[in-house]
């Protein structure tokens, strides 16, 4: 672990954690759009696609913003890879849960 932390693993940790956040935001937007017609309407960025346009655009923007923030934070400094990988897996799992119809349709 010490050896890995001595390496500059910041850029890969930033990319990994940002992807987890993108997945979480997609799951969250899916649940919110299902739970509230008002939010679904706000997320309707492009009529032919409906709320799916807003859910995916918000998730992609959140992913890119998170990537820029974490990329700057860990540009020169190493991070605890194992810990952040576990956090990423939790975020991805929540994203998968939020995009599962049986779950979000129960909202």
């Amino acid at each position, binding site marked *: 672990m010490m050896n890995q932390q001595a390496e500059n693993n910041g850029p890969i940790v930033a990319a990994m954690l940002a992807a987890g956040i993108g*997945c979480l935001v997609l799951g969250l937007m899916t649940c919110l759009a299902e739970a509230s017609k008002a939010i679904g309407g706000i997320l309707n960025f492009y009529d032919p696609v409906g709320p799916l346009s807003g859910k995916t655009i918000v998730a992609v923007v959140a992913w890119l913003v998170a990537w820029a923030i974490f990329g700057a934070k860990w540009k020169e400094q190493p991070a605890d890879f194992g810990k952040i*990988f576990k956090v990423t897996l939790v975020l991805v799992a929540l994203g998968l849960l939020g995009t599962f*119809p049986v779950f979000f349709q129960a909202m």
Partner: protein
Amino acid sequence: MILTPREIWAVIHGMMLGALFLLAYAGGLAELINLGSKWSTEAGIASRVRRLITGTWIMAVVAWLTVITGTYIVYPWYRAKAPAGAELTMYPRNFLLSKPTTAGWHHFGMEWKEHVAWLAPILATAVAIMVTKYGAKLAKDDEVRKAVIVLFTIAFCAAAVAGLFGAFINKAAPIL
């Protein structure tokens, strides 16, 4: 033997881009697993890493093209509302919802597919960046290589769910 413009886009989205992503996964996974082999030489690792970098970036770009064509070109034809008295076979969503025996294809299949598919390009891009930034160090660092394999596999599973339901739904209610 003639495809309509809509069918051509459905083929580009599902059978060309989507299928390419799913098929490329096996090759990428084999390269990642073999990268950790104790019998690999320096030259072998360098060659394998070059292939992995190229392959994972192609997969990431293909995954983005798949979800963008699917969401912004094919999906609007799927979800278009049928005017009163219209032939429902031209409106797949309405067609599926018109019968209790097919409604589940929309309520479960399409609802899952249209959302979960977007996890694939986000995760595939993260994998491509990790492979590019870590390069040959992946061969010696089991922890990072295993993490890359896990994220790569989740991206594949998300794309596989989307692809599988896409094929089933297109069978039940094709985009014409």
